[in-house]
């Protein structure tokens, strides 16, 4: 029997290729393409007075220079707001090349096409753009005060103001026995995939078709966007995401200005043209996330049970809102985590600043929400003198209360209803894993050695697998290979492996016979994209549904060949067999041959399917009515709403009493993402997420000065953690299947990052006895907090 692989930690099929340098990224494609560089705004806020290219024209190798003046028709209009929302009353998007005004450092102003990138940069250096600088709005405080405006026609710098309510939180809080207020702050970080963005476009003048390779998380939608902007028929545009070196959210945004400008140049010049983003460009011209101020009011009883929660969020959306207000919506809905808030009120202001645009980065607003909720839980515990896990336990939604309706609207426009999950069981596992109850002893022993240690905990619930849909195509080739295609893209998650596992099990074939293609509009045209921890849920189920149709047909066709009732047949080891009758079988490859009657024989396999090859009923058409040739099917999965994964992290940290250095001694994760297709890949996702969580908590930030200059736009000064900064990660799993989809899967892609800032703040606070209300935190900042006398670590419990 073919062994089932779903649930098994099989090695990733893509690794040998990627680890031996055989990956093919955008920059590896078509080495003879012309190359693009951009003149980008050096100012955070300015009017463009003049662009003088005269000095650049005699540079050897220059091919073309484009400014806004050279754009026509729809290319001359602002980029779309990808996700419109009624609450986004003042959405603004940039032009593909700045028109009159720039609103952040890094905004593209001039596009240069040259024989190579070196020449293109030489040309950029010689183009003189004259600016009339305007005072910039930098940081949430400045945006909120609205003394200056980013966009003249956006009052108070507010792009959106949204309130969601469930019950009457203000009066529930007013009547509660205890009330606390917290002011919290999270700074900016960013996805920073190791491969930046990149676009390669070639125009075929004979075929009048355009092919675009782009490092994207949404190739089908890029295709639609490029076709729309360049006014081409969609069927004349192919978009392919080749190997993509990480996305983490930033590559879901589309079309980027470069994604339509490069194809435009390719068409106009009749040459292949490419642009490969460099690291400095990525820092100032892609997108950031995370920056928020939060004010929390919470009312609770003496047991620590919430009566009412009222949260206001000031969200820094940067210069533009191409991706709408998804991030603050997620913050204010996912903030609730595994808890019943009593009455809840959430209000947010999404604010413009003259800094880089904010769009989702792994976690997409959840880390901030988790921070608000978990800081609140810790504050309640401290106020009441209760164990921090006790307060959490008392507020958990119980398994018997599932599905649980929060009475709010989630980011997909659907009701926020948790489908399943066992939070008390998750907590029990975590307490055991980290040794929560034994920590007091450990702390005492450490203290005796003059060491300062603390423990922290943070819980989250993550809405995953948002719709609207994904599709999958499954085909059995006549040599027995199973070809699978799905439209969403891959940025390193291991989709080749997991989708192959799903299909292999459905069809009873060895997993290495299954070949998966993702993100190629030539192979699958309908798709949404890879984000929101949705790929396994959406495409996993879609390919399963397609494979089930293929199986049904295989049984039917084989039934005819074996003169057996399809109900007596089974698929295993690449064959269709009569159950319990050894020898009565037909290989799946033969079934594929039989399912496609042929006239022409071009090889031995084909010969077996031609009209004189075997017996067939002369009275019946070769392809039955309602049937189709080929052993293939297309399936779609469209969920009613999101499915909710959950997890809890705990960490033990040590802080140096002298240098204020912070080290993570242990980091434990208990995670429930429903049925595991491949535990190894889920663990990998968790590890990567935790690494980014640690980065966001202790290292990474975007340091803008008052003029709106990003001071740390390189990996020298933007401190992405090295492997030496990421702790050993100890994991354990629960598997509470989702009732919403056939495979019972929940998403796992973002989970690891969500509680990072919350759990480390909790642990540092515990070690230091200093209230931590702002993350990330550096040793220098912890030193300042100590000096301000916020804490008395030695008296801390």
């Amino acid at each position, binding site marked *: 029997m073919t062994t089932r692989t779903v649930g098994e930690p099989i090695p990733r099929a893509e690794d040998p290729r990627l680890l031996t340098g055989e990956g093919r990224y955008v920059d590896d494609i078509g080495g003879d393409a012309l190359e693009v560089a951009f003149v980008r705004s050096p100012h955070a806020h300015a009017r463009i007075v003049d662009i003088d290219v005269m000095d650049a024209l005699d540079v050897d190798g220059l091919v073309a220079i484009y400014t806004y003046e050279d754009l026509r028709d729809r290319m001359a209009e602002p980029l779309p707001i990808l996700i419109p929302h009624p609450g986004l009353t003042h959405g603004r998007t940039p032009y593909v090349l700045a028109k009159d005004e720039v609103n952040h450092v890094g905004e593209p102003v001039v596009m240069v096409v040259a024989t190579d*990138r070196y020449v293109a940069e030489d040309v950029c*250096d010689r183009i003189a753009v004259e600016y009339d600088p305007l005072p910039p709005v930098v940081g949430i405080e400045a945006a909120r005060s609205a003394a200056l405006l980013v966009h003249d026609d956006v009052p108070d710098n507010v792009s959106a103001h949204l309130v969601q309510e469930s019950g009457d939180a203000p009066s529930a809080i007013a009547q509660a026995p205890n009330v606390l207020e917290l002011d919290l702050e999270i700074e900016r970080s960013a996805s920073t995939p190791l491969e930046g963005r990149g676009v390669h476009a070639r125009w075929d003048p004979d075929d009048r078709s355009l092919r675009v390779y782009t490092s994207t998380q949404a190739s089908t939608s890029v295709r639609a966007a490029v076709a729309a902007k360049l006014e081409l028929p969609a069927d004349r545009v192919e978009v392919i995401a080749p190997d993509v070196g990480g996305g983490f959210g930033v590559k879901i945004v589309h079309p980027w200005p470069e994604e339509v400008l490069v194809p435009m140049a390719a068409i106009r010049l009749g040459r292949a043209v490419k642009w490969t983003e460099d690291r400095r460009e990525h820092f100032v011209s892609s997108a950031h996330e995370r920056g928020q101020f939060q004010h929390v009011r919470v009312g609770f009883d003496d047991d620590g049970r919430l009566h009412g929660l009222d949260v206001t969020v000031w969200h820094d959306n940067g210069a533009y809102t191409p991706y709408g207000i998804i991030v603050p919506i997620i913050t204010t809905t996912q903030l609730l985590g595994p808890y019943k808030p009593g009455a809840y009120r959430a209000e947010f202001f999404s604010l413009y600043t003259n800094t880089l645009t904010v769009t989702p980065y792994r976690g997409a607003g959840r880390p901030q929400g988790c921070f608000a909720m978990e800081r609140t839980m810790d504050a309640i515990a401290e106020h009441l003198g209760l164990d921090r896990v006790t307060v959490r336990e008392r507020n958990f939604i119980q398994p018997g209360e599932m599905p649980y309706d929060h009475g709010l609207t989630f980011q997909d426009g659907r009701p926020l209803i948790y489908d399943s999950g066992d939070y008390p069981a998750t907590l029990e596992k975590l307490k055991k894993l980290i040794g929560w109850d034994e920590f007091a002893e450990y702390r005492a022993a450490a203290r005796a050695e003059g060491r300062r240690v603390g423990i922290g905990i943070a819980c989250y619930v993550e809405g995953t697998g948002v719709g609207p849909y994904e599709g999958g195509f499954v085909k059995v080739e006549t040599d027995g290979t199973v070809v699978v295609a799905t439209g969403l893209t891959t940025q390193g998650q291991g989709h080749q492996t997991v989708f192959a596992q799903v299909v292999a099990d459905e069809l009873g074939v060895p997993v290495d016979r299954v070949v998966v293609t993702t993100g190629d509009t030539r192979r699958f045209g309908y798709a949404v994209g890879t984000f929101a921890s949705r790929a396994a849920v959406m495409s996993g189920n879609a390919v399963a549904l397609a494979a089930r149709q293929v199986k049904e047909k295989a049984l039917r066709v084989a039934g005819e060949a074996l003169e057996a009732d399809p109900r007596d047949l089974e698929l295993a080891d690449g064959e269709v067999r009569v159950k319990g009758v050894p020898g009565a079988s037909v290989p799946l490859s033969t079934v594929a041959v039989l399912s496609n009657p042929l006239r022409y024989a071009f090889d031995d396999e084909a010969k077996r399917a031609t009209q004189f090859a075997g017996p067939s009923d002369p009275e019946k058409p070769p392809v039955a009515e309602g049937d189709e040739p080929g052993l293939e099917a297309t399936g779609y999965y469209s969920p009613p709403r999101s499915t909710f994964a959950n997890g809890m992290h705990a960490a033990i940290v040590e802080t140096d009493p002298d*240098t204020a250095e912070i080290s993570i001694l242990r980091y434990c994760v208990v995670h429930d993402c429903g049925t595991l297709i491949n535990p190894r890949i889920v663990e990998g996702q968790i590890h990567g997420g935790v690494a980014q969580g640690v980065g966001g908590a202790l290292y990474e930030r975007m340091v803008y000065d008052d003029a709106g200059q990003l001071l740390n736009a390189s990996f020298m000064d933007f*401190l992405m953690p*090295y492997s030496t900064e990421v702790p050993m990660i100890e994991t354990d799993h629960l598997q509470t299947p989702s009732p919403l989809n056939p495979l019972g899967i929940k998403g796992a892609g973002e989970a690891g990052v969500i509680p990072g800032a919350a759990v480390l703040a909790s642990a540092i606070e515990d070690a230091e006895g200093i209230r931590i209300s702002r993350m990330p935190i550096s040793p*220098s900042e912890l030193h300042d907090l100590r000096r301000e006398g916020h804490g008395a670590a030695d008296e801390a419990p």
Partner: protein
Amino acid sequence: MKPPGFTYHRPQTVEEALDVLAEVGPEGKVIAGGQSLVPMMNMRLAAPQHLVDINHLPDLGFVQVEGQDDGRSGVRVGATARHADVERDHDAGRAVPLLQQALACVAHPTIRNRGTTVGSLVHADPAGELTAVLALLGGSVELRSTRGTRTVPATEFFVGLLESCVEPDELATSALFPVPVPRTGSSWVEVARRNGDYALCGVGALVTIDDDRRVRAARTAYVSVGPTPVVLDVTDELDAAPLHTADWATVGRWAAEQLTPGDDIHATAHYRKHLAAVLTERALREAAGRAERGESAESAEQIDGATRARRVS
């Protein structure tokens, strides 16, 4: 992040290199490991019109322990010896343990495989560990040009932020790190944001003890607290204290008061000063402990009975 065009020179002898440097003058730059120069060129912060690649010059990759005219020994490091060569050189490690103690904190192994020790001195990064090591040991750099050869002591070598006294036509051919006097222990400690990053504050210490286990001399050196490395003589502060009663912490605080570090995006001046105090204490304590345990530098004679050289390829 692509550099502007330049002319690439690959001299095969030192003389040829000096001729090219003399010819191109201020428009030229030596490239050694390229670990500092290439990023600057890619960001177009440096745009030399001529690059003189010294990696193909013969006989400059050495790390050798040699006797000096004044009877003291030293570790001489040639211009193309990599940090990793120095780090792994057994004799250099015995002669001047401080070299390896500090090198372990310089960047990451891959960068140490390419970056040169002499290049890091010429580059004069205020956070470069080797600048302080050279200054603390009272070392020197040998510079050659078509005009002649000169030996510049550390006190005159570091001129300012990212600025050493090397003239455009000069090639730094080697650096000398003298062996400290007998019964001297050393230490390098630093705090960096991430493993291998430039230090927020780094401190080197040399403590010499006498037969009664009293502090006879003690000096400390600092990176990342000013434009050039700072050396402090703390002998008087310790006042010949016996090792077990020496008040390292007070000396640390005194030392920090002598420094005027600045703010940057990773640390405030106050924090840096605080680190200087804490790290001075730790470095002195560790150096003293090593002196006491006899883990001190060895002279060339002790190592091999003779001056010896070893080419490192």
